[in-house]
């Protein structure tokens, strides 16, 4: 993991007010440098952001916890509430897709494909064998504006969703990937193909949850 990423992770942990753990984490880095143990070996372990939990945590082991990598069949759900051209709406959407989880060092990558309504890839930093936190804020996925009003009622309307927060967790055999952020123009970019006036999803805070299992697609 790069120094920049370590910095981002440390900053993220600080923002979450996990001061004690940050101190511990930085202390571990300082110790690693001062004591010379492992030397550059620490360059790839970066994360350990949450110090908090699990049997394998930062400062206790050189090896990151192993989040269960693999391919999962998922169903998605998302919400949007807002107003568009004089009509207030609450809209929900969701579909099915495939989540592929891989891990390299402390970084867990969750790539989601095949879903009409949301797709993309997010990076997380593993905190335990069953949890991971976003590696950085501002990562982007693509959603289809699922509000059946205006231009998005006529055709699929892709737009970016800039992820502000999220979590990757596992309980039993089920993986939950949750995140939320601003969609469209107020987020990381503008809607694809949106006419003047934008899409009804632009600027909305949209939460997304994927519920996944190792079962064959369609079993959800």
């Amino acid at each position: 993991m790069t120094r920049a990423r370590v910095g981002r992770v440390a900053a993220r942990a600080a923002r979450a007010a996990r001061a004690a753990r940050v101190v511990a984490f930085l202390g571990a880095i300082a110790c690693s440098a001062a004591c010379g143990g492992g030397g550059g070996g620490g360059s790839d372990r970066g994360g350990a952001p949450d110090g908090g939990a699990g049997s394998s945590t930062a400062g206790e082991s050189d090896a990151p916890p192993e989040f269960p990598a693999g391919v999962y069949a998922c169903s998605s759900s998302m919400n949007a509430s807002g107003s568009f051209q004089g009509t207030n709406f609450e809209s929900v959407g969701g579909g099915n897709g495939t989540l592929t989880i891989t891990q390299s060092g402390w970084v867990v990558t969750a790539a989601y494909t095949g879903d009409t309504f949301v797709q993309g890839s997010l990076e997380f930093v593993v905190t335990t064998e069953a949890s991971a936190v976003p590696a950085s804020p501002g990562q982007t996925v693509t959603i289809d504006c699922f509000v059946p009003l205006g231009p998005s009622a006529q055709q699929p309307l892709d737009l970016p969703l800039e992820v502000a927060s999220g979590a990757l967790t596992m309980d039993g055999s089920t993986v939950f990937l949750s995140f939320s952020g601003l969609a469209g123009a107020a987020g990381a970019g503008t809607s694809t193909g949106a006419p003047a006036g934008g899409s009804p999803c632009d600027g909305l805070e949209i939460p997304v949850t994927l519920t996944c299992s190792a079962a064959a697609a369609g079993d959800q």
Partner: protein
Amino acid sequence: MSGVFTPLLRARRAPSAWVAAFLLATAGGGAACGGRTTSPGAGASGASGSGAPDAAAPGWTDQELGTYGSCTFSDFGFASGAGGEVTLTRTSSGALQVVFGEDAGQPAGFSLTFLPTSGTSAALDPAGQPIPWEGFCWSGPAVTEGGLPIDPAPTSVTLSLTSGALSYDAETLYLSVVGTPEVDAACEVHAAGSITCARTGP
């Protein structure tokens, strides 16, 4: 949204994908889109795996405990929308208790217990906790007088939760559950749901 659910309009855009919308008419008039109308309403799998709660894991800090509002919920039974409030407390044993306050037009209130797996995540514990849910269930004769299949009706059921996750990140609380419906009748139940809420106070 405070309180009132309007008809749920659901339309298919692609196979295996769905979209639904609550359209609230405003002074300027509302809009409608195709799909069937339902009423609002009320999860599946279990066992242990790599996500087993770690009893040695530290609990969440006081920062994450407290009240969360501005909730949005997806597929809690039939209920999807916005509203409600979640209160997160810690029990004497270190477990986390989540209470979702019942309000008109929202999913029925419930209380669930989670065991921390990290400083910002927790897993449902124990499995099997019940939660009020809703499904479409068939009852009565198989066909109507006209010879057509009867329509299923929204029916309150209990979902026995088999897995669930509670996570906190950047002032946001995520709750997701999966379960098995406990019903006698033939029912169609979407047995997974999620709630996302924003931090509002201690």
